[in-house]
């Protein structure tokens, strides 16, 4: 008993459960994925899986297509989300609280339920499921992740900077171009990472919204693993992880990363 108390007394030991948790559920799986991706079908170390990926025209195609869809989704999210965040951060445009509430409301519902109802909606309106529906569904699902970081940076922005710019001769357009936009970029980076990362690996949403007609990279991985090609699936996952890793570097490279939307 005494030993336990002494052990608990040391503040740094309190982190232990988390360290154990992360070791089991984050680090170990990552190492396993890394390990399996370098094993061939006979269980020998090799680059066989990567060779297979590089020569499989179909998989590379799916991969590039997935990145394309993810980029498209991210871009549309920026185009819709940036003005929305701007209006929400400027109370002169009415009721920002209500708007913020409305944007977050769909997040209360599970992503699969939302996607299923999107499918039902498309059916009801007699719209075809497919690429258009896929992008619509992804934007609908991930838009809040774009709006919030941008809204955050804009809200935290010192309003006297805008006044200072006006004072120095900037009209509304120049204030936006020279002050608000550059200062909100960290929020945009945050949003890009928050949207791009999950969209690239989606599979359930894409299956539902395209009636399995369009395959994304996430689906490919899932199919391979389901088909027992564990090593190849692991290699594909590793490739995807590297791509995602690169995008988050793109965001946090910025020296003002401490001013990002508080999400990185």
């Amino acid at each position, binding site marked *: 008993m005494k030993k336990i108390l002494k052990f608990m007394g040391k503040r740094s030991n309190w982190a232990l459960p988390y360290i154990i948790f992360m070791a089991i559920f984050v680090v170990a799986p990552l190492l396993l994925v890394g390990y399996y991706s370098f094993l061939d079908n006979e269980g020998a170390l090799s680059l066989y899986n990567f060779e297979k990926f590089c020569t499989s025209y179909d998989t590379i195609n799916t991969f590039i297509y997935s990145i394309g869809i993810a980029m498209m989704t991210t871009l549309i999210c920026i185009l819709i989300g940036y003005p929305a965040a701007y209006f929400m951060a400027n109370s002169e445009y009415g009721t920002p609280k209500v708007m913020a509430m409305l944007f977050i409301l769909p997040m209360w519902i599970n992503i699969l339920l939302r996607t299923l109802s999107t499918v039902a909606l498309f059916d009801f309106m007699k719209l075809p499921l497919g690429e258009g529906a896929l992008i619509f569904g992804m934007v609908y699902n991930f838009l809040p992740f774009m709006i919030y970081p941008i809204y955050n940076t804009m809200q935290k922005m010192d309003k*006297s*900077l805008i006044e200072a*710019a006006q004072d120095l001769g900037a009209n509304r357009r120049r204030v936006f171009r020279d002050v608000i936009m550059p200062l909100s970029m960290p929020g945009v980076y945050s949003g890009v990472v928050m949207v791009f990362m999950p969209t690239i690996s989606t599979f359930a949403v894409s299956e539902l919204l395209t009636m399995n007609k369009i395959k994304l990279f996430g689906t490919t991985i899932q199919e391979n693993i389901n088909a027992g090609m564990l090593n190849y699936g692991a290699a594909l996952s590793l490739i995807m992880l590297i791509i995602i890793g690169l995008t988050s570097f793109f965001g946090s490279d910025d020296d003002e990363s401490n001013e990002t939307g508080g999400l990185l």
Partner: protein
Amino acid sequence: MKELDYIIQAEHITKSFGDKTVLNDVSLNVKRGEFVTILGSSGCGKTTMLRILAGFETPTSGKIKMNGHDITTMPPYRRPMNTVFQRYALFPHLNVYENIAFGLKLQGVKEKEMDRRVIQALKMVGMSDYEERDVNSLSGGQQQRVAIARAIVNKPHVLLLDEPLSALDHKMRKDMQLELKQMHKKLGITFIYVTHDQEEALTLSDTIIVMNDGVIQQIGTPTDIYNEPANSFVANFIGESNILNGRMLKDMEVEVMGVNAECVDKGFDTDEPVDVVIRPEDVYMLKKPEAGMWRGKVSSCIFKGVHYEMFVDTPNGYEVQVHDYNAFEAGTEVGMLVKPEDIHVMKKERTCNSVEGEMIDSNHVAIFGGEFECTDSALEKGDKVCVEFDFDKVELTDNPEDGTAEAQINFILYKGNHYHITLKTKDGEKLYVNTNDVWEDYDDVGIKIKPSDLRITKQ
């Protein structure tokens, strides 16, 4: 003086936010090349006034003119003025050079000319060779210099400064004050400066505008303001002072602290009650009590660096603050002498409380949002009346609910032998109370008045 000698004219500016009036009929003129300071405690409306001049706010009513032209609704980016903000407001995404060049770029100044002017502005504020530095890496004082450079590089006609030194430490503030003064001389442009620091205002300005509660109290040169304060608020706010009740006996003679003293003021009614201001440094201390105009006993003596600050109690119950280079130990009997020109006599703004109310029945009247009992009158319910009562006939209670009406203490003035307190009631009326009790600013209190002390007249 010709109208065009004024670069800025503010005419009857009133500004309200909701039902709160921040500026109430403020009019002021600023001469070309002048260093004008708007001085007042926080919440007096000075910053709002500056923001109206800069164009960040539009007045609820009134006009702003520049060189005779109405600019009341002109947006800030079109006004030939630049502002130095209290918290600097430097652009964090730009370096020092880009910050200063911000305004020049918008004007489309050529690169060579821009370089020259930025370098010149940096030299002016003593920050040469800092062009490439990140503004976030600069100290507070350096950031303030960059902010000043960013404003003056545009060669504005008027430079507005919103408490620019308040975030700096004492020593740095002193240095910057001198530099600002020199800069004003060198540039020759009009400076409008906002501060709550009376010493800063006295040091820097050609003209000081003292504001309180959204109303201008006095406009004058630093010496005028210090030596001839217009009212007891100004006297109390600027420097240290003894503010006492007095009675004007005749021209050039005033009764103060029980003594008839010679003064230099005239034009008052005989026996008119007045406020008398005597600066602590204008009181001469004499070792022989009988040689002075007043006699008294030193109650405390504190060394203040240059002078000693002493409090002297007179036999008739007044306390006088005195600054002298010589120390008189506590307990010493002394005489005090003040030269006639150092006795400043000011008209009293009021001699009793006066408020409009409405009768509830023949012996109750509604004033200050409460129902006060009064002596039975022939008046009927609903009659509009004027209620008067003396300053010393009001009782304040610690607990707001114990009073007939509630009020908040707004301003406390020590008058030598009592406190003169300004209170604001719930319904926005002001009332004034003389008391010997010690209260604190912004205390919530209750007010009680005896029925026999209320003088009611029908309107």
